[in-house]
């Protein structure tokens, strides 16, 4: 039995504590926004935030997250449904193609902006290099991160997003 605090909600699950978080989140907790891509922390599709840091849930055992704060893509928007500024920027830049990697991309980007609100191109490359996009939308992801950074903190959809069309 493990106790996970996921997107602000405490949940008890009956799972072998060595099970990777990815499978506990998808199968026991029923949150399918977090994806399986490689199983060896190479592609980033399974990226979630643990105490704010981007981690690969496919190689992180449930035991390592017991009692700590987990955020998945389902918890990125505010409780009232207002999208996170990254999500708004993702739509503005029409980032997703197949969309499968985008939950992981968004979680890596969210962790980046929290620790570095005004990242340079190099900062973005470093933070995002663990997330593969086989549809190749790297240019749009980078542009969307910049737009979201310009929009400042918080979840408000402000003018910077509407003006920041540098796609």
């Amino acid at each position, binding site marked *: 039995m493990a106790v996970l605090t996921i997107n602000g909600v405490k949940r008890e699950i009956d799972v072998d504590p060595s099970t990777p978080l990815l499978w506990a989140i998808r199968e026991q907790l029923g949150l399918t926004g977090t994806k399986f891509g490689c199983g060896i922390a190479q592609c980033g599709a399974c990226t979630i935030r643990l105490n704010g840091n981007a981690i690969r849930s496919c190689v992180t055992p449930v035991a390592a997250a017991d009692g700590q704060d987990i955020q998945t893509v389902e918890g990125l928007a505010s409780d009232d449904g207002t*999208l996170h500024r990254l999500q708004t920027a993702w739509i503005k830049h029409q980032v*997703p193609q*197949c969309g499968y990697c985008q939950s992981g991309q968004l979680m890596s980007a969210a962790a980046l902006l929290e620790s570095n609100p005004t990242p340079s191109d190099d900062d973005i490359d470093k933070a995002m290099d663990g997330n593969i996009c086989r549809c190749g939308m790297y240019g749009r992801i980078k542009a969307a991160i910049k737009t979201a950074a310009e929009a400042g903190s918080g979840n408000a959809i402000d003018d910077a997003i509407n003006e920041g069309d540098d796609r």
Partner: protein
Amino acid sequence: MSKWTRRAFLTTGVLVGGGIIVGVAIRPGNRTGKLSPHVTADGETLVHTWVKLDSNNVVTAIIPHSEMGQGAGTALTQMLADELDADWSLVKFEEAPAIREFANYPLGKGMLLAGVDMPEFVVPTVDGVLLKTAQALDLQMTGGSLSVRTTGAYGMRVAGAAVKEMLRSAAAEAWDVPIGEIVARDSQLSHKASGRSEPYAAFAQTAAEMTPPASPKLKTQDEFKIMGRHVERHDIPSKVDGTAIFALDVRIPNMLYATVRRAPAFGGGIAKIDDSKTRAIKGVVDVVQLPPAEVGAVVGGFSSAESVAVVAEGFWSAKQGLDALDIDWLGTANDAVSSDTIFEQFDRDISAVVDREADVAEGDVEAAMANAAQVIEADYQVPFLAHTCMEPLNATAAVKDGHCEVWVGCQSPLGFRQAIADALGFDVENVTLHNLLMGGGFGRKSRADYAIQAALLSANVGRPVQLIWTREEDVRQDFYRPAVQSRFRAALDKDGNLTAWENTYVNKHEPVDAPLIPYSVAARDIGHVSSPTHIPFGAWRSVDHSQHGFFTESFIDEVAVAAEQDPYEYRAARLQHQPRQLAVLKKAAEAAEWKRPLAKGRGRGISLQESFGTIVAQVVEVTVVDGQTQVDRVVAAVDPGFAVSPDGLTAQIESAVVYGLTAALYGEITIEKGAVKQGNFNDYEALRMSAAPKIETHIITSDNPMGGAGEPGTPGIAPALANAIYDATGSRVRRLPVNVIDLQYRFEEIAQRRNKPPIRQTFGSEA
């Protein structure tokens, strides 16, 4: 726009609540695009497109293509809405297979029409010809960059125009005015003289009782309002908040999970399995051996080998169980086969020239070679490639009481349904298939092997099973882009003019035009020999164009260099008879500032390739430092005839460039002991953000039929890259991927060629 023929027709029906539904159908023998092969027998009808207009004045397009990321649904809906003169804010689409309620996919009943039972309106209106609608919708395949080219051009636009014409007739009748005075705009019909105006929906029911026009008038390009305009894709919001449901996200009550391993050597079998450790793992339910799956060809190639799967209460238990199996694999006839032996075989078969078949033979190539001031010669090779869709292969199946229900993301719903039925020994009517969003497809998801495995597992354990392949299985059990060798000879006169082009390669697939070049040359002889391998192969984004684009556009560069001419100008001079191609090439060169000098260690290369009805020229800029290649910039010029969704096309070009660069820089599946060596993204790498170039896309609108979008950006990127590397380093890349080549080693090959008989370059680590 091709003529709308009697081989196609429109049909109509009344929707519950007073709306109208119109379908466009294609009959057997139709010569439209590539649809005819999908309509196989007399009495079969491919219902190609549906549009409905409900009583709230909302128009819904029903899209018969699978979504794997290409955004076809939005582009197709634009085509329909424009011809209909609809208010874009009142238009939506449903993907034919996009199902939210998994238990409600109703092939043959209810269909997609919000609970309307299709036969009820189909039968009385069209003599029952459309009774096969369910089957027909299943026939839709996604691939070949066909969505806009065929469904859009011959289905969506016609449906939209027909509905508009019927609505106008209905209004003319109701208002008792000539139809010519009725104006349709923004989902409203109006009559200026009388000042009357009503929403489309007011006439939907009357229109639904009319006979659809045989040949609705379509707009000309200058009349387009929604086509060619930037609109946001409808599917994107669900892809940023985790609510989009991919096949992997399907949850069925009482479902088990499974993972599988097929004999690593293709064609292999299982001698013995010790599963005692596996069965001791908590959560493991069963260990199931699966027979070889013969999966029919879309492009060609079969995979036949035994598999073993572990079924468990969760994926992790299944995975641990699979890893704990002690398996003795049977030896195979191909255990001695490796990439090296395959390329030796290709070289032997090309040299032997046995049963060579010509694609094109015109002019006297031998005479031109004999009279040439110089003959240049080169061999090119590309390796096998996997697809590595972001979403690993998976399928969920529930077999119960002689019926099989399958949830899968696939590019060929009908093919899958039939293949599953065959594997289970069921009638196809007893297989229901729900097609979901695909996390990438790229051609791999046109092969049904993974769905068959899921169905067999469910039949075996008597419960629904979600089969998830590991990434390692996905890389090792693909239907690969075939490895190819291609041999060239070109004759040049004393002024450097190209007088003959000779090319022999192994193993022709499709499209048939892939090895052809657009450049004028008096004598051409392009042909192929057969050199089969045991490696399963299939369609890979842009199919044969991806290999031949690299070969021909690299070799023409070699020809230009041998002629001591600028590679861009050399191409341009040979495109005087091809104004459309020339314009695209010019656009790319200008946008990339082709003539601007670059610093030492940097280089620029160009390519031109037409595929799937769209012409793409690309200029790549690279920096090569200590033998390491960094791609700095890609400039693409694209002529798709007309870009329905310019941002969608731009995104597809960006995507195709990155997909092609991944392959050109890193992509190599190597064969050892008859099996694939690589297994995951650590040894089969994908391009990442820090290595991704800046990509600039320039769209040219020409007055030509609409071409494809998803694939045409891929073939030209590898040769433009290789040509840029040559420009930067003097090393000619004749074998991919680039990262296996030592770019610090420089050949003195051009100097050698000019004064000596041709020397065939050999391959190996020194290349």
